[in-house]
């Protein structure tokens, strides 16, 4: 029998999130979407870099929308891990948790007595997710840095951009936003295994290794065919042969407005000719067959661009789609916020955040489970917002014990603006 309210798959799961910045915290966000109770532990003294990262609505510890994104749906607890009583609280949290997420340089957790072996002694069946750039082992294990360096080092950057231009995709630290999908998928599988067997495990994610798995055929093509795949603009290539044309991003009316068009078949090509009102292209020897279009893709791209520039992007997208051609405008941030499909899916969730009020909606994850849909449980926390709630309500400390821990300096409270 269906329950009255939509339950989450992970309503019974507790997550202790000790990671920082982006990749680790986003695993916590994914757990929270599906019902887990996620406690983010951080320091109010050595604050998360994300708290200073744009978009910022001003100076102040709670004014980063970036932090708000990375911690959507969580509770916040600020602890001093170098304080003995602070470590005592962490020990209680470990006993409370099913999953621990961390992203420190390998060896750091061990200094606090929180390495996997000791966590499992304290809480048999615990699942620990460790996210690092290079993994827990190997000669580069201790290298510190951020996702942007992995974007370069993994080979991903070399696959994005124009052949005559810079390696691209550096506006974001791209690996930080893809590896949480990998780690969280594996961790939920590990939870299922734990429930069946009682056995937990250590999930060791190296951003390098996960990211290399997103490079398609680049590794086997190099090792089998000695072909080195490098960035190729918007061509869709099989090895080095294009197999769709037009396949590109073309200007539309306005400043920095673009439409992506991908035509694979003769029917789709014919529809492109119709919509762009260029009947003459059908008889142009350069364009008559897919093979010809691929061979002449530079002149094809130039010709298509000349036509698309006359059109409003959204209207052109709708007309091309109605005619059966894959097309989509390259949304800027306004475009995403106003996209009718995302709005239809309820992607944007109204929230009331302590700093941003209702100006910053929560955004849902695009895997919708019909009976246990994802939800945004609460806005991102303010710093140290749930110190008392976590200790009293989640961990069961008495008010006296809580006061005692405050007096002992185990908890941190933010003293700045």
């Amino acid at each position, binding site marked *: 029998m269906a329950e009255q309210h939509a339950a989450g798959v992970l309503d019974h799961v507790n997550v202790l999130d000790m990671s920082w910045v982006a990749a680790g915290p986003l695993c916590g966000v994914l757990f929270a979407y599906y019902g887990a109770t996620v406690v983010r532990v951080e320091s109010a003294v050595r604050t998360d870099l994300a708290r200073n990262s744009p978009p910022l609505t001003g100076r102040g510890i709670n004014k980063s*929308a970036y932090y708000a994104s990375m911690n959507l749906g969580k509770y916040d607890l600020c602890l001093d891990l170098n304080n003995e009583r602070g470590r005592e609280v962490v020990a209680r949290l470990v006993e409370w948790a099913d999953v621990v997420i961390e992203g420190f340089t390998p060896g750091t957790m061990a200094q606090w007595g929180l390495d996997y072996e000791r966590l499992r002694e304290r809480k048999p069946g615990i699942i620990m997710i460790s996210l690092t750039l290079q993994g827990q082992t190997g000669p580069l294990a201790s290298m510190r840095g951020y996702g942007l360096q992995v974007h370069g080092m993994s*080979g991903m950057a070399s696959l994005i951009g124009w052949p005559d231009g810079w390696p691209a995709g550096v*506006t974001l630290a791209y690996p930080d936003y893809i590896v949480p999908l990998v780690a969280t998928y594996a961790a939920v599988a590990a939870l299922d295994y734990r429930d069946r067997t009682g056995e937990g495990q250590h999930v060791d994610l190296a951003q390098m290794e996960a990211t290399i798995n997103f490079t398609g055929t680049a590794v086997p093509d190099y090792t089998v065919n000695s072909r080195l795949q490098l960035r190729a603009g918007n061509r869709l290539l*099989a090895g080095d042969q294009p197999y769709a044309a037009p396949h590109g*991003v073309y200007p539309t009316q306005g400043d920095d407005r673009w439409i992506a068009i991908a035509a694979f078949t003769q029917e789709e090509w014919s529809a492109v000719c119709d919509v762009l009102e260029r009947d003459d292209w059908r008889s142009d020897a350069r364009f008559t067959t897919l093979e010809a279009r691929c061979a002449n893709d530079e002149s094809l791209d130039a010709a298509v661009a000349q036509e698309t520039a006359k059109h409003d992007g959204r209207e052109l997208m709708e007309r091309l789609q109605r005619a059966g051609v894959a097309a989509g405008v390259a949304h800027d941030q306004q475009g995403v916020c106003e996209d009718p499909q995302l709005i239809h899916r309820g*992607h944007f969730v109204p929230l009331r955040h302590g700093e941003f009020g209702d100006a910053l909606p929560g955004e849902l994850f695009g895997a919708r489970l019909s009976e246990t849909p994802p939800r945004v449980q609460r806005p991102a926390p303010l710093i140290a917002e749930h110190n008392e709630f976590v200790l009293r309500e989640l961990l069961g400390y008495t008010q006296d014990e809580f006061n005692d821990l405050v007096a002992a300096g185990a908890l941190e409270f933010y003293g700045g603006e």
Partner: protein
Amino acid sequence: MPNSRQALSPYRVLDLTTEIGQYAGRAFAELGADVIKIEPPGGDAVRRIGPFVRDEAKPDRSLLWFVLNASKRGVTLDLTQPDGQSLFRRLVAEADLVLESYPPGALDALGIGYEQLRAERSKLVWVSVTGFGQDGPYRDYKWSDLVGLALGGLLYLWGEQGRPPTRARASQAFYHVSFGAALGGMLALYHARRTGRGQRVDASMQEIVTFTLGGPGAITAFWSLQRQNITRSGPGINLGSMISRVLYACQDGHVAVSTIFGPHFPTTIELMKRDGAAGFLADEKWRTATRFSPLPGQWQCTQEDADAVEALFASWIGRFTRAEVLSMAREHELMIFPVNTVADNIDSEQLAARGFYQRVEHEDIGTTVTYPGAPVVLSETPWRMKSHAPMLGEHNADVYGALGVSGAELERLRAAGVV
């Protein structure tokens, strides 16, 4: 024997997806599920996409097919024929999860959609992978990787100003939705085992791309909070109020720096001094400079300052090769990494130490193919490549035989073009 256990070994998955969702099936297979890839008798479309082994365009040689379908078993089945549909129903009766990427409504029209099959198997998890989702104004839109990146907002940020945005040479949005579908499917599978109740997972490529757009709402906040749009900016980050260079040319390519002004900035200055390249940075005050909101003891430098620092840094780092930069970064804990190609990483000492790459014998075509290894290492139930991707119809006899289809019956089905 910890390595023989796998997390998902009790589960069976039927995989009907095309390119957009095929990696999801591989993700289930490599955590141990028995994943059966079902393709039309003429072969899945991905088999026709190169590059091919030794560039010989044959269906059992597509490297894209290999990387998306490793570790699965494979059968052929024509789902448009009644006999095919009946076999499919029999497979579903023993499956825990179905992955499909048909246009919304297409399987319902064949009489084998989720609503039609759930009645027969209440704990069934059904994962639909599409460009935009099962309903809404874009429901019937055609999708491609490029279009997914575009409407998800990520494409706009990739490339250089003054030129069109650019995709990656590998189809990123397909990976995003595949992992998103794997996550959604895994959650539903977990729930079904706990409660006995299955459900449908509707995975939208466009919507999942918005998550990889810097996390949920991080980048769109430029618009919702500040009525601003940030755009792509070649070798750097342009956050409107702050432009920060990430890539620098060196002797044999590029290096990537997330920010010069990190905890390693004082060390960087010392090294530049050592090489007589510090210029104005020799002034002590720069040791505490930052580009971000200053922490106690730091001061925030201006964009002009940052531009000048980056120019000095560029002329210094440009003297080195990538290997020299990596070794300097390791020795001095600098957060500067080389920009590699996939070829550079094949001989990586780090990846070799972790046993990352998987060399797999393909006996049928007499070659060994090197694959990226596990994207994540699990201590007790490894992520493991079990086998190379199936040849066309490779497991027909096994899979249909286990259903009780006799050899003679299978032959009849083959002759009728059902398998």
